[in-house]
């Protein structure tokens, strides 16, 4: 049985598993998801975009709670989706986990965690990637 969609997922493993973005070698701006060229430096940036591993630490800029989920996510409703500003600058959209919905707050410090994102039914591939959870630092203060 051949399953579609696997190739695209496989190409994106570095960014999905390890938050590998791109940094422009000309102006230093960091992009996630990774870009092949810098929109500010355009031609000057071609061939100068370097891989950069982001720390996975950031802060919630804004969020919403999903009550009607797309296929594959029905079992998790209601769940928060947030725009997270990473330490290095880029903003990414991700699910917030390991946190009660009423505890999710704008400005909350979060860090990335490795989770199942979706699967192609009971027989297809399982796709893993990043979600965000409250920073463990809170726990370490005691």
């Amino acid at each position, binding site marked *: 049985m051949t399953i579609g969609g696997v190739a695209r997922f496989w190409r994106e*493993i570095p960014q999905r*598993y*390890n938050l590998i973005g791109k940094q422009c070698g000309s102006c230093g701006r960091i992009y996630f998801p990774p870009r092949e060229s810098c929109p500010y430096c355009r031609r000057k940036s071609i061939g100068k975009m370097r891989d950069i*591993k982001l720390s996975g630490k950031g802060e919630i800029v804004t969020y919403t709670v999903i009550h009607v989920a797309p296929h594959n996510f029905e*079992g*998790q409703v209601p769940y928060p989706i947030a725009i997270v500003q990473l330490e290095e600058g880029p903003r990414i959209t991700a699910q917030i*986990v*390991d946190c*009660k919905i009423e505890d999710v707050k704008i400005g909350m410090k979060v860090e990335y*965690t*490795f*989770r*199942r*994102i979706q699967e192609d039914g*009971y027989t297809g591939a*399982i796709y*893993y990637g990043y*979600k965000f959870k409250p920073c*463990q630092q809170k*726990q*370490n203060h*005691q």
Partner: protein
Amino acid sequence: MEQIGIVSYGADIPRYRIKVEEIASVWGKNGEDIKRGLGINEKSVPSLDQDTATISVEAARAALKRCNIDPKNIGAIYIGSESHPYAVKPTGTIVGEAIGATPNLMVADYEFACKAGTAAIQTCNGLVKAGMIEYGLAIGADTAQAAPGDALEYSAAAGGAAFIIGKKDVIATINHTYSYTTDTPDFWRREGRKYPAHGGRFTGAPAYFKHITNCSKNLMKIAGTKPEDYNYAIFHQPNGKFPVTAAKMLGFSYDQIKQGLLCPIIGNTYSGSSLLGLASVLDVAKPGDKIFLTSYGSGAGSDSFDITVTDKINDLSRKNAPSVAQLIENKEYINYGTYAKFRDILYWE
């Protein structure tokens, strides 16, 4: 003498918990009787987006946060579990990629019921000793499944621990290891089946106790030690009672086992069980402490270890990742309905 052993370690436990009374009430049983009988109060439950791969990755990343090892120097990853997410496609490939250790390394998944994780430590120990690898990563993790209404439903839990094995900056030396193996059909899961089956009362004396005690005694013979030589002892924990009884049979005190005894508060994490106990001991261990560990895997076999904590444990950044106690404290209770959804019990094709 060249030291080989644990260089760093990390743990992961999903934060959802279900109480034994909650499960008991669904099946019309008395929760207090079951809690007393099993010595378990509550167990950890993975959410829909957690499995053995995600727990293994989190535990491995925690181990890497505590030390300064370049993941590219990890030459082997062995992951022990009876709940690998794929029947065919190694969990180790996912973990290797997620910690940045690929592509120059050996990877294979292990399966030996609840002792596959300690088998992974033995393999890494041997490969380091042979000089074939600089560091090896051994993981034991599970999201154990139990059929609805089965006795195992009160104990089958989720969690795991990861250990980096090497010979530089060793925090805990593995002085001796020994295994005891027989063909004993006490618990099994047939290929393609979702839930395991077990031999009921057969799981006690001829299985768990025979293997744990023989393995432990033989290791102490090899090491030339006695129970009172150890500061800590960890035995596999299928419930809260068996490890306490096994310790008593061997001459270990409750004080020696309590730091590593987690089953009463998180359930049986299968391949994660004795290894989370070891992680909990390493969270508080001091230089010179002696640790005794015996795992048990149905089928059946035991692996024993004689371990000595070194001065290097004070240089390890233990605070860089949550301790086992912190992982246990960070919890949220769910009811049986949510549990059924998370564990995919409401499954049909």
